[in-house]
């Protein structure tokens, strides 16, 4: 069984179909890229997969559970337990230090553990920046804190919406390297991106247009 399966999923805002009858399967441990022009419904899809929004029609089966039918409270639990989120804007709590931001995620998930949080920061190369506030970090560093935070609870599935959208080449490579590591460890990755270079390193790329899945590309030269 697939880890994630979207069956005839539509999201309708009045006259607009942000998602239009989307069917998609994602296997456990897969690395999927989602591309498409602006307004094509990528973020809408990520919000639905990330249990932050519900589809207007269709089923979204995550780990055998149809999350389209769950209550808001249950969705919060699923999001907390199974999903790691990385955003385009680096959303950090601005009055908490890097390590505290990572610990917030632990706090909602289970138990805050400063040692573990520091290890996660070390993994993204930010051990010496642990006590800095977000305003004292560069954009690339902030995004790496977000990645550390997304990984800290060992989620089954990591969702990244434009993770490199605001980063330069060097930082983009750091983030891609981190994704490679995650993939090797068996984490399922879904990455929304405009950037063909980021899409190229994934196993598979799907393309959205006007809310429809229009293309699917397998990466033949995929290397782990």
């Amino acid at each position, binding site marked *: 069984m697939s880890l994630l399966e979207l069956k005839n999923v539509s999201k309708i805002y009045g006259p607009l179909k942000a998602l239009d009858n989307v069917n998609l399967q994602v296997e456990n441990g897969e690395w999927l890229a989602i591309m498409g022009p602006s307004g094509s419904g990528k*973020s809408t899809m*990520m*919000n639905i997969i*990330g249990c*932050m*929004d519900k589809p207007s029609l269709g089923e979204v089966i995550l780990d055998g559970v149809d999350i389209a039918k769950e209550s808001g*409270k249950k969705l*919060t*639990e699923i*999001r*907390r*337990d199974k999903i790691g*989120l990385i*955003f*385009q*804007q680096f*959303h*950090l*709590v*601005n*009055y*908490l230090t890097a390590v*505290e931001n990572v*610990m*917030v*995620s*632990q*706090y*909602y*998930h289970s*138990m*805050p*553990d*400063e040692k573990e949080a520091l290890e996660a920061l070390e993994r993204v190369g930010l051990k010496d920046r642990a006590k800095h*506030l977000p305003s004292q970090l560069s954009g690339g560093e902030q995004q790496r804190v977000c990645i550390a*935070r997304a990984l800290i609870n060992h989620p089954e599935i990591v969702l990244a*919406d434009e993770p490199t959208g605001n980063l330069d080449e060097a930082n983009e490579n750091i983030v891609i390297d981190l994704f490679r590591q995650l993939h090797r460890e068996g984490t399922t990755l879904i990455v929304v991106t405009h950037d063909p270079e980021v899409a190229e390193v994934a196993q598979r790329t799907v393309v959205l247009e006007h809310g429809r899945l229009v293309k699917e590309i397998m990466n033949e030269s995929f290397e782990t």
Partner: protein
Amino acid sequence: MKKQTMFLRMITASLLRRRSRMLVALLAIAVGATILSGLVTIYYDVPRQMGEQFRSYGANMIFTSSNGGTLSEEALNQAKEQIKENQLVGFAPYRYENITVNERPMMAAATDFDGAAKTSPYWRIDGSWPSQPGEALVGKETAQTLALNTGDKVTLTFDLDKKPATADEAANAERNQNNREFSVVGILDTGGNEEKYIFISTEDMEGLTGKSDSFDMAELSVSASQNELKSYADSISKKTDGVSARLVKRVTQSENTVLSKLQALVLLVTVIVLLLTMICVATTMMAVVTERRKEVGLRKALGASNRSIIVEFMGEGLLLGGIGGLLGSLCGFIFAQAVSMNVFNSSIQFHWLLIPVTVLVSVLVTGLSCLLPVRSATDVDPALVLKGE
């Protein structure tokens, strides 16, 4: 690390690192708590303060004999001791005797001059209070009748025998009299009955009459509320043999009306200040929540339940309330002290109980005013965060 530790770390970081916004809320709470604790202090201190003011209008309680006889010193002391020492402003026993001065019948009154000075602070004396044996204070009316001035000598005569029944008897009987010379040290002006008397010390009266330990009444000045005074009077009359205590109505009643009006005013102001504080805190918290919608969305995206969002904001609010209350209870005392010094010219005691009470009230008030703003925080949609608006 325990969850509570992280919780405290988050809310203190929010308060400490986002100073400016939180300072406004803190200021609102602290000012509210200051006025609150200040006014409560004044509210409870006003009766004492005003009581002391009112005490200048004279005695508000009187002891008399309950059986028509005289009062012994022992009975008086027994009655007096039932009044708390710090409430007893003054105590003056009085003994009245008929005497003659140059064959003219007069009234002599014996009292404790130190006590009388306290129970009757409005007495005006031309000269000085008697301080030595053999000195007398003469009422203005009597001084005029006898043409006495300060520095003059006056001889008081006391008949040891019973009043002669007939003029004949009076002429024939061998007069058994005591005579004593007093020097007039002061003329007493009160505008009342006291101007008819010649005041001497209790010891001198005993010497003059040869009779000790017999008083006619005692005046007391007690700093207490009307109700307390009443219960004092009742219990003294009941418990002390031979003594009947009653209140000087005119004085205690006017005291009471002024007091209750003042207290009602203070109470009203306190309630209004509390309301204003609540509105101010609620508005500030509303702004805080709006300002932090993104953070709320982020926390929710990270798996925070509505409950934990409420607990976190409430935690911040209550911590703020506690700190504000603590600050306020201290500033409130300074405020009350300043008011008291300016209005009543006397200092007030610090009530330790006021600190926990003020902190508790300001925590409650802050909590109450945070309810609505915090509820609105739970409405934030986590999807907003991903959209990155």
